[in-house]
């Protein structure tokens, strides 16, 4: 670690604190926000997420070394954490801290993109099934039932087995496309009840067609389960990606996703626990933070709690 990277790290921590404080301030101004803040873990979760996101964004500033560069395979293998290597080095003499920071980009990025795909497809299918009902609903929901019955990991394993070298982008999309089923059920339930609300009838009476009704009236009011799904979904994807990478079929080497870092350091878990330990901790913190934030959001956005 150089002086500059220390400064950058301090700056990143400060930025994360400021961002978290801003979020708190804005949340406290609204009733839903106050419900969110009543969960002590939710605020902590916001800070942790802010920290990791800042790290990911500021990776070039905060990482002293290139994450894929093998510094000195002979002398600098598996070095314990020191002032020079903040989190030590791995078996290929790569700086763990730099890899962790760039890995944040990968893991968070994969998580977010896959989640966006899943939530978009899930919300779309759920909205259509819930709004139009009857046979379309039945067909779509039976499809969802099938999707829920098939274990996600197996589908991904099969895909990897069938393609020689699955590009990362395709893997991310595939993760997304295997993960929208629960969201669609939640959104469908919400849409079914919203459909009967009078403001939807009012919109139709004024002449709005189904597209406008779904996008302007129904979905914005069904935002709650979608947002909660999203927050929890990122966590799921991060864990899934870690699992796949750990098995060696996820993010290809030498890209430093947290899962592949664990994979790389697995054999040295006793001799050099920092190589797998730190990425493992990072995953744990981020997923726990996402779950805490997701729980807080679920409580905050619960319409039955309006006025508490």
């Amino acid at each position: 670690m150089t002086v500059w990277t220390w400064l950058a790290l301090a700056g990143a921590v400060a930025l994360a604190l400021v961002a978290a404080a801003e979020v708190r301030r804005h949340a406290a101004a609204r009733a839903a926000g106050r419900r969110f803040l009543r969960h002590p873990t939710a605020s902590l979760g916001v800070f942790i997420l802010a920290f990791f996101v800042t790290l990911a964004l500021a990776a070039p500033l905060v990482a002293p070394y290139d994450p894929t560069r093998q510094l000195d395979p002979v002398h600098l293998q598996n070095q314990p954490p020191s002032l020079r290597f903040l989190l030590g080095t791995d078996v290929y003499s790569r700086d763990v801290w730099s890899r962790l920071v760039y890995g944040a980009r990968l893991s968070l990025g994969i998580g977010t993109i896959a989640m966006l795909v899943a939530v978009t497809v899930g919300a779309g299918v759920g909205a259509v099934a819930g709004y139009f009902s009857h046979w379309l609903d039945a067909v779509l929901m039976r499809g969802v039932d099938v999707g829920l019955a098939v274990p996600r990991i197996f589908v991904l394993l099969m895909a990897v087995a069938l393609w020689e070298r699955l590009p990362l982008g395709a893997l991310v999309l595939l993760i997304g496309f295997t993960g929208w089923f629960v969201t669609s059920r939640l959104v469908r339930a919400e849409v079914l009840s919203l459909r009967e609300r009078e403001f939807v009838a009012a919109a139709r009476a004024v002449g709005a067609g189904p597209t406008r009704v779904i996008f302007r009236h129904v979905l914005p009011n069904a935002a709650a389960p979608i947002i909660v799904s999203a927050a929890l979904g990122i966590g799921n994807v991060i864990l899934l990606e870690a699992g796949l990478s750990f098995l060696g079929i996820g993010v290809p080497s030498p890209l430093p996703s947290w899962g592949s870092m664990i994979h790389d350091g697995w054999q040295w878990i006793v001799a050099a626990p920092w190589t797998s330990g730190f990425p493992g901790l990072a995953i744990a913190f981020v997923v726990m933070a996402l779950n805490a934030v997701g729980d807080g959001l679920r409580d905050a956005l619960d319409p039955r709690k309006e006025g508490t």
Partner: protein
Amino acid sequence: MTEPLLHVRDLKTYFVTEHGGGTARAVDGVSFDVYPGETLGLVGESGCGKTVTSLSILRLIPEPPGHIRPGSFIEFEGRNLLTSAPTALRAIRGNRIAMTFQEPMTSLNPVFTVGDQIAEAAIVHQRLSRRAARARAVEMLTLVGIPDPQERVDHYPHQMSGGMRQRVMIAMALICRPQLLIADEPTTALDVTIQAQILELLDRLQRELGMAVMLITHDLGVVAGSADRVVVMYAGQVVEQAPTRELFARPLHPYTEGLLASVPRLDTRVSQVRGRLHSIPGQVPAATAWPAGCRFHPRCPYAWDRCATEEPPPLDTPGSEPGTHTVRCWLLTEPQRRERRA
């Protein structure tokens, strides 16, 4: 003059609103009495504090965010309800004072049979066995006019209509023969023909059981037909109190006047009626910001400068015995202003 059964003096119930909304002074100095065997009508629109008043009497207000201010006084059968211990209060609720609620759909527990819910009060207060309590429940169902009570006692609320559920609630309330029944909007959620049935039922039960009824409603027609005395509430206060006939014949508070004039009525000729209904301009202010002085003054057609600065206390009307017809209005001190406006 008999002793009042329920004596409420200067009741103040405030609610703390979060995040700088201020304190909502939902009930702000309410005083009235209920005498044994009479029906007192508590009339007002939404936001006037009538439901909070009734919940305060039974100490059913959630303690944060609500609290009953010191200085309030509620006495029932000679006992101070505000200083009673929780066990003593529980012995009174459902037993000496009972309450029915507006929405029979949501006030009955959907997972228990009707019989179980009615019997519960008897089991708790009279220590009856399950079997004896069930028999009492069937008696109560007959008393409130539900057909086939032996069968109905095992039905669930969702198997019954709105009118029947309201009757069940009344049965639940009356099983221990309370001295006072607080009926919160007993007819509002019901169809007109069913409303008439329920009002007739309450009338009959009151006579048979000799109990007092506090009838809370926004419907002046209901009050005219069922109440002996009327208390009119506005903005957390009692603005007028009078025997029913007197109130309708000579409404003295401008709010009461306005309310009576703006109710659409069946008993006027159609030709007189097409055209404008009298309406009170403006709307009810928020409980966090009652106007200074008389709370009704921004909407009052007679208001003058005194009304904006000094809050009138309940004043006796000349020509009535003290305490029978009180009005919170400065017009009583300057009655000539009323003629000038008209």
